[in-house]
């Protein structure tokens, strides 16, 4: 993949066009957009604004649902999930920055379903690192990128949004 793959604004633009096209089909009426803390929230704020969605934006923190609590313990900076309106029966647009193993999305859906039973969930991510460990796929992606096992991709923001590749040993 080229360096262009890491241009966050270009990827976001592509996501937005595809999402806009999907919503215009009318199968997801009055969608409720929810960003996954923290990078997903930055992206969701941009998408929410540019698509002019009427329902307020929700924020999901998945710390309490992670599957690696026994290994890494509790995230000390856990933020409460804030969903501004009931999710029961709603069409959810779930936004995250990077999809890799799929574990974050698994945790996010568990947290989401604790608030009620949505009509549908559409997953939108900026970057797919294609290292899935669970049978979970995004409906819309900005781009794909292959990285080596000792690398990680991080989104910084909220202004400006930028993607950077880091070596895990530097974290």
């Amino acid at each position, binding site marked *: 993949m080229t360096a262009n793959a890491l241009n966050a604004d270009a990827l976001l633009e592509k996501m937005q066009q595809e999402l806009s096209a999907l919503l215009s089909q009318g199968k997801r009426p009055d969608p409720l957009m929810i960003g996954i803390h923290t990078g997903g929230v930055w992206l969701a704020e941009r998408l929410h604004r540019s698509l002019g969605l009427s329902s307020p934006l929700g924020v999901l923190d998945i710390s309490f649902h992670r599957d690696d609590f026994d290994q890494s313990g*509790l995230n000390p900076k856990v933020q*409460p999930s804030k969903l501004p309106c009931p999710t029961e029966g709603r069409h959810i647009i779930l936004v995250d920055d990077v999809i890799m193993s799929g574990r974050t999305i698994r945790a996010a859906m568990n947290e989401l379903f*604790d608030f009620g039973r949505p009509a549908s969930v559409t997953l939108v991510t900026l970057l797919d690192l294609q290292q899935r460990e669970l049978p979970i796929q995004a409906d819309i992606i900005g781009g794909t990128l292959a990285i080596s096992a000792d690398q990680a991709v991080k989104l910084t923001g909220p202004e400006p949004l930028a993607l950077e590749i880091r070596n895990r040993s530097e974290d």
Partner: protein
Amino acid sequence: MFEQTDPNQIQLTDEGELKHFITTEGLSRELLTEILDTADSFVDMSVKQVKKVPLLRGKTVVNLFFEASTRTLSTFELAAKRLSADVLNLNISTSSTSKGETLKDTLMTLRAMHSDMFVVRHSSSGAAHFIAEHVTPDVAVINAGDGRHAHPTQAMLDMLTIRQAKGDFTPLSVAIVGDILHSRVARSQIHALRTLGVSDIRVIAPNTLLPRHIESLGVKVFTNMQQGIKDVDVVMMLRLQKERMNTALLPSESEFYKLYGLTMDKLALAKPDAIVMHPGPINRGVEIASSVADGERSLILDQVTNGIAVRMAVMSMAMSGQAKNRPNLTGVGE
């Protein structure tokens, strides 16, 4: 009764994270704030249809109560269940110890059942500490009140209630009123208030219910309630602990109420927006008037709600510290 080492050698990991919760004494402001922040996110959980998170799923929490308690036991039980733990409530005063089993044998038995956490309430000061020393490294111990020593989760739920009502701790004047002598709650409150930056902490009690050298904890002592309560932001009442009074420390309950009971008249001397708290159970007409306890400035029921959130926070943080302390596990994930 029990020999003591520095509690923070026991309750913190090498990285300074909580692995037991024995006392608020000596804990840093950052750690106390982290407990309050974590508790805040559990408070917000009450809006969800499913009021449960899977953090302690598959873990076994044993509530070891050597001393009677309804509110503390039930909120610890609910907290553990909302974290998805399996909970066992043991009322030891009616159990094996009455058949002659020693405390240590009881603990070893429970440990052999692969318990992951003990929540301990005991009438002897230092009991939770003693237990933490003898069950480490693989079982987390939470102090739910030991003798006259400490009741740290009560103190932290009080801090959460104050923070919700007042925001910042530093400019506050806080009065703790009543039976300071027998109160583990007061001790834990004083340590937490000081660490969180409250500059003006007052204790108000008759001389017979004040421990010696209480000033050394950095509090101002008043034996006159009217003087002590003047212009405070927070009034924290304590329960008159009749069950711990072996000698005649008070002339009578009605005399105590007249001098130290929180009535509307006395509360009027505090700031107009002062809040009233009480750890419960309330002795109406002994330390607090019903009109105050049920009044609009009373946050007594908020304290109960916050108690669940704080206990969830402390339990998950201690389990997190224990998990990270264990060797031979490698992290996998995004």
